């Protein structure tokens, strides 16, 4: 029995010979908030659609709640346990807010009326307003309501805060953390806003060119990654070879800057062995880790 709510193994998907996923390995633990990061076209939305059964993988496997997702109909049972927010936040243009809530409710036996009311009030959604008359931010909030009130065990959110103002973004992020804490929901979300991911995610995965380039617990990752600055004495040169883990090494004048993906202690030790060198180490942000991986790839 697996503890992973989402698990993919060597997932591959191409569109007209253009590979979108090239052997993606992904594991999302139950109860976690997993931030799924990547540049445009890295394969995030393709992965999400494959998990929902909207796309069929060319090879490899995808399991959600331990159930293999192979096509649209095999994933129908899985979808009853998932809340989904689409990237473009499009909903039926001929319905009002109230109508789309009434439309969605019967498909989900665990529908949470308490959450429906709570988010209607919190997001100040006008029940009688037609969906095309809502701003993009309002539509994002409505989609979040429809996803969360399903009583889902897993929320898959594709750019959930896209279009929201900073205050609404703050509200939404706080709510996501709150529902994970109170009801043990797993959240798998993609975002370009690295600061948001850093704020709420406990696990992150960075995908680039259809492959997972780094994945794991965010705290562990930030503890493992460090930036090291070495200020060399005039005339001294850096060592020809740094220990393993020293990446993205740049030298400007007497200052050598590097990002350590691991093995930071050994790297610092070597730097300190350079006569006259001053060594400083700094914590890194998720943005630095992200940029390091997508640039080097």
């Amino acid at each position, binding site marked *: 029995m697996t503890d992973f709510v989402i698990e993919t193994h060597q997932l591959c998907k191409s569109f007209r010979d253009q590979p979108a996923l090239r052997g993606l390995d992904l594991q999302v633990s139950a109860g976690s908030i997993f931030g799924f990061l990547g540049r445009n076209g890295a394969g995030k939305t393709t992965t999400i*659609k494959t998990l*929902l059964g*909207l*796309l*069929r993988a060319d090879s490899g496997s995808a399991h959600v709640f331990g159930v293999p997702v192979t*096509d*649209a*109909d095999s994933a*129908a*049972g899985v*979808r*009853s346990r*998932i809340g*989904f927010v*689409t990237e*473009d*936040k*499009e*909903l*039926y*243009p*001929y*319905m009002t807010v109230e*109508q789309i809530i*009434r*439309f*969605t409710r*019967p*498909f*989900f036996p665990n529908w949470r009326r308490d959450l429906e009311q709570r988010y209607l009030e919190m997001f100040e959604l006008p029940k009688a307003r037609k969906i095309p008359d809502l701003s993009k931010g309002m539509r994002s909030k409505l*989609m979040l309501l429809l996803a969360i009130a399903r009583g889902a065990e897993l929320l898959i959110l594709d750019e959930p805060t896209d279009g929201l103002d900073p205050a609404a973004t703050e509200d939404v992020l706080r709510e996501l953390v709150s529902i994970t804490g109170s009801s043990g929901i797993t959240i798998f979300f993609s975002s370009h806003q690295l600061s948001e991911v850093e704020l709420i995610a406990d696990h992150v995965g960075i995908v680039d060119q259809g492959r997972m380039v780094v994945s794991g617990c965010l705290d562990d990752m930030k503890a493992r990654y460090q930036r090291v600055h070495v200020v060399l004495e005039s005339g001294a040169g850096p060592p020809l070879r740094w220990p393993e883990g020293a990446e993205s090494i740049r030298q400007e004048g007497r200052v050598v800057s590097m990002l350590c993906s691991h093995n930071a202690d050994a790297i610092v030790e070597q730097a300190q062995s350079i006569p006259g060198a001053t060594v400083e180490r700094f914590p890194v942000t998720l943005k630095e880790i992200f940029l390091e991986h997508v640039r080097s790839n």
Partner: protein
Amino acid sequence: MLWLKGWLETRFRLLFMLAFTALPLYNMHSAGTHASARSVSGLADGLASNVIPLFTVMICAFLAGAGIATQAPFRTSKGLHGSTLFTLSMPVSRLRLLAVRAGIGWLETAAVIGVLCCGMWLAIPLLMGVVTPIQMFEQVGTLIACSSTIYFLSVLLGTVLDDQWRLWGTILASAGIWFLCTHFSLPAFADIAHGIGERSPIVAHTIPWNVMVFSLGLSAILFFAALKIAQRREY
């Protein structure tokens, strides 16, 4: 709830088609004012052979749905509406999605065909003496059954084409069916064009059961093909 969604997507199209039937009915009324009790029978034959089939095809083409994709209420849409992904994220099989959408359109098509046929009585009151209620009921049933091939052909096209191309595709395919039926000696049971027109109960005074059964069978095959495509299609 899928029925509600389908109804909200199609209600304006249905209203439009109901209003559209006023056009042939007005023309029938104009023609009917000059008809005598003796000539009204020939007029009824002419309408059932030529006018009604043409409008039946248009009704089918307009009211058949866009497969499982979201359809804009007023106009034919180009490209996939983003809310289709919302529909597909529901825990519903594609069979159910397609069956409900096709079912609503078919009921609406049947209703408009019924209004068009029965409206002939109002447009030409003399027709009441020529076409009995039973004959009219048979006429409506025949048209619904025989035109279902065109309707489900449109449903099939809707699973692979944008809505606007589905509409034109259906009209083109219908013209192809008419060409086949009128220029080649097809078996009588496969002559759908004449089943809707010259072999319909008002004209031929018999029910073309064989054409109706053939058309309904073909419709089932077309729906099955549409389902297979919808199940395989990626979004």
